[in-house]
């Protein structure tokens, strides 16, 4: 398939402005004639729905939670970037753009990243106006801190709960419109099918999770803001219900899936404790501002960390990367932690952890200062591990955290299915092969507040729509096929639980498609996933009924989709014979263990087309060109 990225002409700093001027507009009185369906109520979905309703469009918003505020954006801790340069340390739109392209290891579209940097300052203004209580200095102005991959302080934060405060801000605007009737909101609805009429996305089939009924929603455009697919690894920092079903089913209806192998492993998570574990908990990257990462220089059992003198500690990030130190980007920090543990320097009962030590910061600034900045994170750590991080260093290990890949979108955030727009983590667009800290909140809100309100208008104004209602043949067929899938799942009545299959899939993904990948392992993974998928459809046991709240059935559908997506992820990783960002192929590394890109062959976006379950997907390439940030080997030394 030929991909049209629709990047506007002109110099990069003028592209977005020119494009906005060139777009067709919908007359204010006509906006209410257009109906937009927004799936998901995280940062991207809530901000999009509210902003579209502000403009006067008819909006339907759905989420599988009971309330929009439960979306997993709520759990983002550290902060949100914006080049306000309030710190007077040399920040600018150009520098944020540069850092993000470089941080993404030169696998993102320059034009998108520039636009992201351009609109991000406005997000902070918008959020403050909504009453988001960002951290402030004594003079009453906003405070900033630093995040990985940047040498300036451009991260705005609200203690360790920035995602919560931003989401509550966006949801407050969503609530305002629900209250005044401008948005119709449906809670506990899960999108199970995309409806395409005359080649355009015109609606969805959703399941009412309380009654089990299948419902049809028709509109002029569908916006997916349904998050990432990190739970394909089973254990991740994602919420338990986070899933890929909406984007995967859209993929099966024709939307291309891009860069599936670009997954982010976050370096600072609480290590796995035991087989009972249902999820992993992140300790915000902001902690690396003041915490120092180290392992003992001696292998084996060197004793309690507080008894190990400074001379016998290896502050390996500070040694290897003197200019960025503990604030190297996530992919680098994660890989180095794994390397240390693989070499036998790991600490804790499982030896699969490194220390994150606040001893020096507490000595320097006092306990109160730390409490003020990171209090909730320290409490969370204490609660989970039973250890007090004010007295002993935290133990951390990398965990799956974010997926840079997602549905392919053009500059307008439209997928390869006309009328299907994809926002936030669900799309592939801005982070390349590695996302920098505090950039996810930025992208989600940029997409929702400042990009989709413009680009969707252009689509609506320049498209003629066939008459279609929920009785259209395509709706009937979509509902029937959804019902068949559900019945098929219920009828298997095998012997293994959904969770057992999910864990088995997660093990394959983590072992072979995790932090380090190689050709043989990826081959094994593809084979293993296919076998597991066959077993799933013969031996899964789903209990309960289809006509009531049934969490077992909900999970079964999601795991079925992960069993297909996992294979695509492994295939994408196998085909990309280079290392870049979060995608590390052991065959392609420099002598000192850094990722070795192959710009000649792989400077492109890999967009995959679905051709049938178990069939080889077909690859389309969107070449990437870098006019402003010249690809070089990333150096944080």
């Amino acid at each position, binding site marked *: 398939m030929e991909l049209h990225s629709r990047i506007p002409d002109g110099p990069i700093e003028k592209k977005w402005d020119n494009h906005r001027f060139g777009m067709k507009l919908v007359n204010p009185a006509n906006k209410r004639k257009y109906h937009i369906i927004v799936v998901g109520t995280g940062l991207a979905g809530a901000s999009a729905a509210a902003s579209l309703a502000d403009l006067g469009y008819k909006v339907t918003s759905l989420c599988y939670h009971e309330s929009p505020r*439960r979306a997993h954006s*709520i759990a983002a801790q550290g902060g949100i970037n914006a080049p306000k340069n309030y710190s007077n340390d040399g920040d600018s739109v150009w520098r944020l753009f540069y850092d993000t392209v470089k941080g993404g290891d030169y696998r993102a579209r320059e034009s998108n990243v520039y636009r992201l940097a351009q609109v991000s300052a406005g997000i902070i203004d918008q959020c*403050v106006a909504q009453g988001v*209580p960002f*951290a402030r200095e004594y003079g009453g102005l906003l405070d900033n801190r630093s995040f990985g991959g940047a040498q300036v302080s451009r991260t705005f934060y*609200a203690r360790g709960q920035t995602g919560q405060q931003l989401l509550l801000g966006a949801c407050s605007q969503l609530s*305002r419109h629900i*209250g005044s009737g401008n948005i119709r909101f449906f809670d506990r609805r899960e999108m199970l099918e995309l409806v395409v009429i005359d080649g355009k996305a015109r609606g969805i089939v959703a399941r009412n999770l309380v009654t089990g009924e299948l419902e049809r929603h028709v509109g002029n455009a569908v916006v997916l803001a349904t998050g990432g697919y990190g739970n394909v690894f089973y254990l991740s920092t994602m919420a338990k219900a986070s899933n890929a079903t909406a984007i995967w089913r859209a993929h099966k209806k024709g939307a291309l899936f891009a860069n599936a192998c670009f997954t982010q492993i976050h370096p600072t998570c609480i290590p796995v404790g*035991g087989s009972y574990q249902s999820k992993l908990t992140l300790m915000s990257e902001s902690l690396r501002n003041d915490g120092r990462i180290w392992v003992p220089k001696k292998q084996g059992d060197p004793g309690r960390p507080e008894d190990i003198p400074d001379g016998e500690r290896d502050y390996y990030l500070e040694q290897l990367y003197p200019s960025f130190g503990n604030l190297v980007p996530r992919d680098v920090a994660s890989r180095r932690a794994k390397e240390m543990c693989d070499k036998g320097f790991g600490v804790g009962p499982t030896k699969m952890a490194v220390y994150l030590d606040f001893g020096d910061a507490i000595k320097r600034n006092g306990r109160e200062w730390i409490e003020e900045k990171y209090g909730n994170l320290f409490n969370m750590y204490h609660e989970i591990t039973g250890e007090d991080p004010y007295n002993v260093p935290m133990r951390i290990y990398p965990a799956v955290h974010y997926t840079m890949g997602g549905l392919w979108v053009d500059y307008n955030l439209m997928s390869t299915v006309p009328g299907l727009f994809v926002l936030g983590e669900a799309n592939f667009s801005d982070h390349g092969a590695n996302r920098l800290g505090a950039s996810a909140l930025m992208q989600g809100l940029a997409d929702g507040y400042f990009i989709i309100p413009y680009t969707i208008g252009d689509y609506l104004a320049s498209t003629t729509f066939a008459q279609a209602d929920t009785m259209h043949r395509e709706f009937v067929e979509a509902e029937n096929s959804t019902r068949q899938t559900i019945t098929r799942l219920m009828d298997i009545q095998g012997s293994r639980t959904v969770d057992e299959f999910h864990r088995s899939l997660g093990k394959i993904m983590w072992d072979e498609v995790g932090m380090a990948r190689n050709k043989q392992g990826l081959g094994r993974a593809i084979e293993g996933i296919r076998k597991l998928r066959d077993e799933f459809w013969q031996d899964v046991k789903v209990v309960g009924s289809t006509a009531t709240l049934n969490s077992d059935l909900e999970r079964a559908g999601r795991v079925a989709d992960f069993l297909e997506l996992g294979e695509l992820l492994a295939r994408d990783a196998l085909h990309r014979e280079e290392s870049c960002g979060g995608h590390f192929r052991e065959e392609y590394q420099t002598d000192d263990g850094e990722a070795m890109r192959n710009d000649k062959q792989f400077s492109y976006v890999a967009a995959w087309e679905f051709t049938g379950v178990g069939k080889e997907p077909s690859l389309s390439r969107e070449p990437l060109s870098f006019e402003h940030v010249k690809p070089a080997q990333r150096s944080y030394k």
Partner: protein
Amino acid sequence: MNFTLEVWRQKSRDDKGRFVTYTVHDISADASFLEMLDVLNTELVKRGEEPIAFDHDCREGICGSCGMMVNGRAHGPQRGVATCELRMRNFADGTRIVVEPFRARPFPVLKDLVVDRMAFDRVMQKGGFISVRTGGAPDANAIPVPKSVADDAFDAATCIGCGACVAACKNGSAMLFVGAKVSHLALLPQGQAERKQRVESMVAQMDAEGFGSCTNTYACEAECPKEISVSTIARLNREYILAKLS
């Protein structure tokens, strides 16, 4: 660790519901309360029985989805945590644990431990916001907010909307939940324009949903996983009186 559980099972909103006794074995002391229920649910599914339905999602105490009465306490015996953060090491081995849904008239039980808390959302929709259209906001540093004010607003804004305050209150009052939002927005300069109207409409909706009145038992503060202070209720009362008198 081993436990005997008395769990509330209720098929649907209209079903009467009853306690059912289960036993769980070999539970790790580091497992969370919900992970302990996961273990039980896996056994139930293996036996062909329906798993216990409970709301949960982030499992790190911030989404506010989970919430159940554990031995009569909202979110269990630990202070300042949601059920998903509660670890089994806080219970004596071999003990009996009673698990029920949050009970309040405005929170109907949908199934087992799952309740419908949309009443909270409907209260929010009446005024839990500052009306700002997207675009055209002034520079974020245009209005300085003293740090102490911003900190107080933040403390109130950390509410996760789990409903523990209502479940803990003998009157089923939502004053802590509403007080937290009213305080957050009334403290900030940005919230001034709609200050009076906000508190009046939110309180009216709170009453319409059937939440009870506050009689100052402070049970809400004691059970709030985010330890939101009852001073937000005092502020709610003050805001309400000011709005009514002016």
